């Protein structure tokens, strides 16, 4: 349990969830699949991390949820980005790009 690593992962997970929801509302399982897809199978998000993150984001008002029928006519809880969630996504993307730039520069320097 090294706290720095957790924080990095948690921040990354939030960004991935927001990104996954950017196109269309999804349910929990859908989000997991979408993340696997957009990271080209690099990330397998466990539900034990996904659901707490989702609920935290819901409490913060970044996403809102509604129950509706799934593609196979099953009832499922769909999450959708709110306005503040969109703003958060932009902010996190900007931050991430900056981190990447800095880290790349740092790693490639002599």
């Amino acid at each position, binding site marked *: 349990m090294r706290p720095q690593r957790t924080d990095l992962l948690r921040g990354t997970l939030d960004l991935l969830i927001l990104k996954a929801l950017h196109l269309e509302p999804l*349910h929990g399982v859908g989000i997991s699949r979408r993340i696997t897809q957009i990271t080209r199978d690099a990330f397998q998000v466990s*539900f034990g991390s996904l*659901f707490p993150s989702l609920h935290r984001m819901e*409490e913060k008002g970044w996403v809102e949820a509604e129950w509706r029928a799934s593609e196979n006519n099953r009832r499922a*809880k769909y999450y959708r980005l709110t306005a503040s969630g969109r703003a958060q996504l932009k902010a996190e993307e900007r931050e991430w790009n900056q981190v990447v730039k800095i880290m790349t520069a740092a790693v490639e320097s002599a």
Partner: protein
Amino acid sequence: MPGRIVSFFRNLLHKNAVEQALDDELRSSVELLSEEKMKEGLSRSEARRRALIELGGVEQVRTKVREIRVGRLLEDFAADLRFTNRTLAKSSGFTLTAIVTLALGIGANAVVFSVLNALLLRPVNVPNAHNFYLVQRFHVPPQAYPDYLDLRDRNWTFESMMAVKFVGEVGVDTGGNPSTAWPVLTSGNYFDALGIRPYLGRFFHASDEKGVNSAPYVVLSYAYWRSHFDEDRGVVGRTVEINKHPFTVVGVAPSEFRGTDLIFSPAFWIPIVDEPTVLSINSLQNRSEHNLWVMGRLKPGVTPAEAAADLNALGSWLSKTYPADDDGIKFTLGSPGLLGDALEGPTRAFMAGLMLLAGLILLAACANLGSLFAARAADRSKEVALRLALGSRHARILRQLLTEALLVSIAGGAIGLFGSVQILHALSAWNPFPDAPINIPVNPDVRTYAVALLLAVASGLLFGIVPVRQVLCADPWQMIRTGTRGTGALRRFTLRDVLLVAQIAICAVLVTSSLVAVRGLVRSLHGRYGFEPQNAIVVQSDLHMAGYANNQTAAMQRRMLDAVAAIPGVSAVGFADDLPLSIGGSDSFVYSDSATDFRPTNRAADAMNYSISPGYLRAAETRLLAGRDVTFNDDLKAPAVILVNRQFAVELFGSVDKAVGAHFKLFGGSRVEVVGVIEDGKYRTLTEDQQPAMFFPFLQNDSSNTWLVVRSKRDPSEMAAALESTLHGIDSGLPLTIAAWTEEMGFALFAARVASVALGVMGLPGAMLAITGVFGMASYVVSRRLRELGIRVALGAGKRAVLSASLGRALRLLAIGSAAGLVLGVLAARVLSHIVYQATPMDPMVLGGVVAAMLLIGLAASWIPARRALAADPLLLLREE
């Protein structure tokens, strides 16, 4: 973050709905996952199994989601509280001990703090009290009226300056029911300068002062208006008679205004320019009569230092202009409310001492509880180990222990506060001098409550963290395996022992000092002060109240003497204008016979002065050492004569023998001859240094105030009745106060009484804490070593051995603590000797008393553990394992 706030309440209020939604979501996720798997060609049950594996367990996910929710801390806290309630209720003896201990500690602190707050921290209850100061002459309050006028009119640093004169009782007649009351005389600007609005009518103003006797007005206090005028709103404009002179009621003061003194609340206020009307004396022109209190409000931006410099510049001017009266005069600023620096110093020292003791008591209580909680944590080590083994985090267990400590401390604090509020209300209502409106308003205010709460929480944390180390170091595996932690810690001299010794020492200090104070008090009641207060009745009357003019008083006093002397059973009677060791008493400067310059610095002595009748010495049982008593022939036609005490004789003339027949001069130059020398006495306080005193014959120095001293062998109540009917037989309008002389000495003994009561009250919780401390220690040791004791008994140990093994340690600590406390108490008693006359710890009664008290404490505390230890039955113990 409104979303989070909404979630917070949703989580708390609709807990079930929130949980239900989570359940639904997880179930639907499982469905969605298994459908996916079934599409890949798996059987329904296999798909479901894989789905559950991928999800990672419904219950696990649920717990993780629950953990991030807002409001979870509160939920945990509620759970902790419920758990704590259960565990505390299960061990009610422990809980009760802890709560009572804390209630005592916090209660004692709340009471002492409240008194400290009321007397020293809280300013006088006037608007803008922060720039309101008492102007002292040197370091005592009294000033002369002409000096006050000069200060008021010539300073540049004070916005306003007012004068207050305390006078004794006056006779009041509101129409048919004569009574007495205690007013104060004030300068006309008094109310305006304070910035107070009248409740009814108006106040008098500076503009009402148009010379002597120009303002026959009176402003009633709210309390007096309620008690004597039945809240009659038509009272404004009515005329009342004060000492038989008409005064007009102009207004009523608001209920919260009790005057500018903390402990004295006057019945009404009269303009000081009317002093000659009220008192039949006129001190307004006299620069040598210091009897006013001067207070003032600084101008905005002026510092107290600037004001003092300004006053002292005026002082040196006064000193040059009026050398006879004001030579070398210096002014200082003091805080109003108490009697200036004079009373504030000792009060501050005493209260600081008490606060320290109270703090020590609480500290001892915390030490006590710390040990109790540590013992409890040790006893619960199995439970803790089990919880740790089941995956509970250390933080969670610690939080729960702290919750327990805080719950106990808050309960103790609440009970302690409740008790102290009762005590404080009783104290505020207490009227120490039955005939004077003096009380000590120490009702608790917000600060008291805040301090009590703060102390409760702080002490909760303090004793709550004692067992923390124990829990942090706990190794669940070790504990579950062996059931106990090593007993090695018991052998060492631990922090807990030190705490216990300190606690016992504090208790011994308290017991010692309260015994010293009480013994001193008892001794002072039977001491010899130059008169014999036992078996004497005193009758106080003021002839001005009854309407006698100055030239009529002496004749009336003579008639009173003759009438009382004729009562059967009276063996001696005499009177004085003031009694030693009662509230009054005045002093004045005397000069050697050769003196021609009567400035204060040339004085030969500052002597107490009394005016006495023939027979007073015999009635008071004051011994005449040389010369003769005053007689009825020492009147205005005869040469001026005087009696002096031994101290006076030695100071001025070198010896008692040389004094008789010698002369000296009074202030102003009149010459008197000493005709007799009497024994020394105490005049103002029991602890004072020996003062010189002189006694005028009443026919040469008249006074309306009359204290008859009557000595008789008859029953006091019978005698009092006879005195009243005899004196009212001469004049039915004479106001009389009849009491035993010992009762009248209440004022002189007041400080000693307060000290004894306060120390006694502090000593009680101190003693109880020592008992619980020793008890806790002893019973803990016994319970820890019960098995060992059982084995010893099985091996043939006698009762003695068992007792010494189980109680030896606690009792040794008790002995060490008591000895340390006794030594400290003896040292502390030196401070006490300034307050209580003849307070000395070098008294077999005190020393014996302390030892006996500590022995009793030890016995009481170890009784139950000792019985438990003796009942150790090896068979039972073996079976238990």
